[in-house]
């Protein structure tokens, strides 16, 4: 029996982010003082240090900045998934995040691919944002 994939670890910085994922929404932080968005969620804006931040829903569209195909899993839970794609995704709103590329054509991933967010169940209603190839180049 394979180990289950890890569930999100929720803390005070990230609770709304993971609640959003449960609801199928990708939430990122935007600063009301300077207007910049960032990933990962923080107590203050890394561009200007304002704590005047709000959660906004990202479109979920992005492009692949770079990626790798993992052929040796670092944790036993991921071994059944090998080979799988880990990618850095540039969101349409600007911030960059990490995720897997899922789907039958995931191993065809190339830098510059357009991708769209999806959500992967991680047990008891928890979910992590993931991406699928959306066709075309971003």
């Amino acid at each position, binding site marked *: 029996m394979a180990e289950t*994939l*890890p569930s*999100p*670890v929720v*803390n005070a910085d*990230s609770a709304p982010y993971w609640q959003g994922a449960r609801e199928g929404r990708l939430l990122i932080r935007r600063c009301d003082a300077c207007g910049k968005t960032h*990933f*990962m969620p923080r107590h203050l804006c890394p561009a200007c240090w304002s704590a005047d931040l709000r959660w906004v829903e990202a479109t979920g569209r992005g492009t692949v*900045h*770079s*990626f*790798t*195909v*993992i*052929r*040796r*899993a*670092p*944790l*036993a*839970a*991921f071994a059944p*998934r090998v080979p*799988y794609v*880990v*990618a*850095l995704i540039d969101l349409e709103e600007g911030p*960059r*995040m*990490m*995720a*897997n590329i899922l789907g039958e054509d995931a191993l065809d991933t190339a*830098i510059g691919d357009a991708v769209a967010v999806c959500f992967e169940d*991680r047990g008891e209603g928890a979910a*992590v944002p993931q991406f699928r190839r959306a066709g075309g180049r971003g």
Partner: protein
Amino acid sequence: MSGTSLRNRVAIVGVGESDIGKVPGMTGLGLNAQAAKRALDDAGLKPPDIDGLLTAYSFTEPYFMLGSVLCEYLGLQPRFNASLVVGGATPAVMLKHAAEAIVAGQAEVVLVTAGENRATGQSRDQAVAALTAVGHPYFEQPYGSSIPGFYAMIARRHMLEYGTTREQMAEVAATTRRHALLHPNAHMKAPLTREQVLSAKPIADPLGMLDCCLISDAGGAFIVTSAERAADLRAKPAYLLGIGEFHTHEHIMCAPSLTEFGATRSGAAAYRMAGLGPADIDVAELYDCFSVVPIIEAEELGLCPRGEGGRYWLDGRAAIGGGAVPVNTHGGMLSHAHAGAAGGLFGIVEAVRQLRGGLGARQVEGAEVALVHNEGGILSSHCTMLLGKDKA
């Protein structure tokens, strides 16, 4: 502008390596102690001469306050002590802190060590923890990411932007293996060809097993003191001519770029302090946790133009006697040893030895100025130093 310069103020006066490879009869602390004793003997000093100690961290042994733990183990009661954690950049940063302490009068003779029994001293679970610990626990680890995977993404981006090839990366491993075969204490003893690297087991595309650094039992140490005191000691001093650090991120998802890193800035600071430039470098010991890394560092530190790092290696310019600045003359972390922070420390040890001379076939002829670069995280934290046979 800047404060007191560290240029010409301190020197490395002793270096030591523990036994390296699979050393099942020794603990991590024991490896540090063995290297420290060898460095102290090399300097012609005695334990009571040491009044400062800096060390790094350990994944294999459960100690908090590792600096104090090591002092206790060695029977030292110094007036200056800390354990530092800047990943692979730690040894070079420790030299900087040691130099600052000496120049400020806070210590006179500082022992710097790092080492772990990574090959025999950790369970499968600990090995896995060490492999994943650098990834962000909440936003990277849930995706089954790994350290080779992070560097693979950097390699792929370099291939796209500059045309860097797998053959060029493989040549890094092959060249440094040839160097390691000239080193009596290197972990790897057998030749390695580019073809073997290219056909090795894939780990994280485009990187294979032999693009990844070793897992060794190993400890390294060096002794730092003032330039004045160095003049009275047994070994030929290696003077610190310039040193600088720069830090841009920790996790790859927050890296400002996957092709431009902080080594350019740390290197510029070191060159500026020394009043030297890349043309003055005779030998370079670069961090090489993965084969693509010394390609990028050769570019960032000015050994070749941006985008030509791969050709620098494939054309043989990084080899001893290759007509340019030889790189990783001891074999680096790909072939000499890698055990936590000790990996980068061995680059410092090798630079000192090259400046002293007399290394036989491994010797870079006429080596007067050496560059050492350490990086930690995912090309996150950088520290560059220039060491000289003479003061700058």
